[in-house]
């Protein structure tokens, strides 16, 4: 162990001139500015939250290669087909001309479909952006916040996004309730009540029905493969309809993206909620399995559909749910269970299952 270093004195001139260390820059003297001197606020620190959000979000991949490949092949195909057609008309080779015309038509159709997909994807993205803005600028509670956006303008944008006309009764009742003195939070509350609540109810009914039916179908289907196909088909159909309720038209790519988002939500969001839910699910599946193993499977599938549906509602709803109005799985569970019970009862008494 070395001894502590002894104190040491430096002569001033040597210390400053000989050792140009890291902090050798001279201290700056005070400087008074005139108060009239124009000044800008000191640059603020970049807010850390967006970066954090971006890190938490799934990695964004731009498939430039795929896009370039597709558009180049479309372009080249068009060029070649056009050239062949031109030569064919000159040379009188009608068969080759017809084939190339057909090729052109196919390319045109393909391009149109591609553009449609892109358009719908863009719409989905716009929907997500609007949703973000509605959540950002409209704090859920507390008034007196300095809002930068006119509440009514945002409401109008939402109306357009949902594809409602100005004469739609829901919009009319919202306009009747909204007053110029309402703050952003109050407008948001009214908007959720008048515009979204009827749709929430419809969506909930849909999820209940679909999950009940899925449960029954899986319970009665004879083959596992058929089960899986059924589940996939019905879930995608449900997703489509829920999205349509909130004013989203889904294409193939946008459906895929939404589906992925919903699945991601299911996987990552609300782990605690999932734990309680899963516990109850297991319990009720055990109960159902007492009836029959098929009923247990059916209940499992039905509950999965219900959870998917609720997640889809939460993902597509333009204004996020307040804590107490979020539809819960426990409300749906009983209904799915009753559906299965009815099936079982009718099977026991030898009647046909009710066709609901």
């Amino acid at each position, binding site marked *: 162990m070395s001894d502590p270093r002894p104190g040491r004195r430096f002569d001033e001139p040597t210390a400053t001139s000989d050792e140009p260390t890291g902090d050798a820059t001279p201290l700056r003297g005070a400087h008074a500015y005139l108060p009239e001197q124009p000044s800008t606020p000191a640059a603020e620190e970049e807010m850390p939250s967006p970066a954090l959000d971006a890190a938490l979000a799934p990695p964004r991949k731009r498939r430039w290669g795929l896009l370039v490949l597709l558009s180049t092949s479309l372009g080249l195909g068009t060029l070649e087909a056009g050239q062949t057609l031109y030569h064919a008309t000159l040379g009188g080779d009608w068969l080759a001309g017809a084939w190339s015309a057909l090729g052109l038509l196919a390319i045109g159709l393909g391009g149109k479909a591609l553009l449609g997909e892109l358009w719908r994807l863009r719409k989905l993205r716009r929907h997500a952006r609007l949703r973000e803005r509605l959540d950002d600028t409209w704090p859920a509670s507390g*008034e007196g916040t300095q809002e930068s956006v006119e509440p009514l303008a945002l409401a109008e944008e939402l109306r357009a996004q949902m594809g409602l006309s100005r004469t739609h009764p829901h919009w009319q009742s919202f306009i009747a309730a909204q007053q110029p003195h*309402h703050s952003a939070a109050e407008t948001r509350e009214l908007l959720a009540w008048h515009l979204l609540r009827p749709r929430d109810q419809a969506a909930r009914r849909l999820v209940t029905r679909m999950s009940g039916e899925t449960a029954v179908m899986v319970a009665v289907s004879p083959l596992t493969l058929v089960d899986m196909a059924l589940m996939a088909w019905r879930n995608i159909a449900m997703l489509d309809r829920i999205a349509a309720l909130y004013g989203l038209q889904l294409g193939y790519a946008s459906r895929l993206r939404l589906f992925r988002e919903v699945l991601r939500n299911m996987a990552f969001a609300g782990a605690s909620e999932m734990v309680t839910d899963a516990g109850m699910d297991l319990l009720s599946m055990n109960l159902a399995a007492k009836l029959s193993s098929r009923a247990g499977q059916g209940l499992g599938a039905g509950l999965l559909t219900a959870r998917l549906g609720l997640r889809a509602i939460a993902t597509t709803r333009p204004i996020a749910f307040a804590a107490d109005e979020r539809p819960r799985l426990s409300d749906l569970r009983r209904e799915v269970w009753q559906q299965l019970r009815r099936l079982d009862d009718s099977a026991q008494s030898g009647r046909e299952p009710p066709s609901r």
Partner: protein
Amino acid sequence: MRADNEAMPRDLTQEIHNLIERGRDRQLRLAVTGLSRAGKTAFLTSLVNQLRHAGIDARLDLLKPAREGRLLGAQRMSQPDLGIPRFPYDEALASLAGEPPRWPEPTRGISELRLKLRFKTRRARGLLGDTANLTLDLIDYPGEWLLDLPLLAHDFLGWSEAQLAAMGPERQRFAEPWRRAVAAHRPDEVVDETRLAELAGRYADNLRQAREAGFSHLQPGRFLLPGELEGAPVLQFFPLPGIAEADRRQLEALPAESLYKTLARRFRHYQQHVVKPFYREHFRRFDRQIVLVDVLGALNAGPERFEDLASALSTLMQSFDYGKRSLLNRLFAPRIDRLAIAATKADHVTPDQHANLVALLESLLAEPLKDLRYADVPVRAFSLAAIRATENRQVESDGQRQPALRGHGLDDAPLLLYPGDVPARLPDAGFWQRQGFTFTAFRPPPADGGALPHIRMDAALDWLLGDKLR
């Protein structure tokens, strides 16, 4: 100072009934307070009116039970405390329906009204059916009476000193005639009753003038609104100038008939028999409280009055007993578990200024709000107009669209004006000299028989009652 069980002598069955209702959480005491001219009477009139018209023609979009169509209406009941005047609702409505309509006469003391609200519960309650009642006791009392609370912490000598020290230059001016009169007497002198009454009268005059001029932090509060104590010797005392803590021993040794001793006796009597019973009987039994503040009036009156209002309000807010409601203290020691503060007369500014109005109210109450936050009592600030007197318009001037208000002035003349911006914080002294505020007063709108128009009464009601109407 807790004495909850010494409630007023009341009918025992009534008491038991109340106890049961409270236990079932079906009774709520809502206290409405504010300093004079804060708009208490208008607020209560509008509140009763909105609840009576709920579900028919009242626009209560922000009151959830009403929006869901579950609120069926309200009826006035006979009140439990027979010793307290009933809130003059019919008289208030009559003056609003007059030609031209007038604001209701302000109430001068404590008054009470009991309403029974009927609503559909969110879920059916089995055999009990799906409708339920909530008994709502509304208590209206002048905030001035609350300002006497700090008086309990003083004895006469300390109070005298504090009162005279707290007078600003403008207050001094009002107090001058009384000061001159009282200077002629020494503390050890024997002063006869008539002279005492005269001096006390002058002191009360000084308080009244100060209030006319817009001051609010005035003690003793009963001098301003004496109620049934008008002319009683208990209201005939005043702070004695020229005495200090240093000569306490000397003063205590004075004979019982001396001026000092007489005043001190009356002061003690005032403390014990006027201030304390009021707290015990009315004050400790509220569940919800709304404090109304006339921010615009204070802005009109200038910075000294504004400061005075802030100190009065912070005194006022200290006197409440806050806390969470559990079953036990719901029954035996009710406390305020939710508080609303409201800037009234929000219809006197344009809608875009409401956010500023609320911010100003919050900055006015910054100190008490910190304490409330520490006590974990939910508070919300509102800007509201109990009875909306103006209409929002847009005016095209200099090529720009500007918001404006249309209504009628107190002299019945039609007005169309932009009342000016509301500052989000109190502006500096220079501003008052340059510009100042002149928020114009409007008369109420002509009655059409339907529910009274309002601003944000529904939000305030939702905050104060909404959670009990499930």
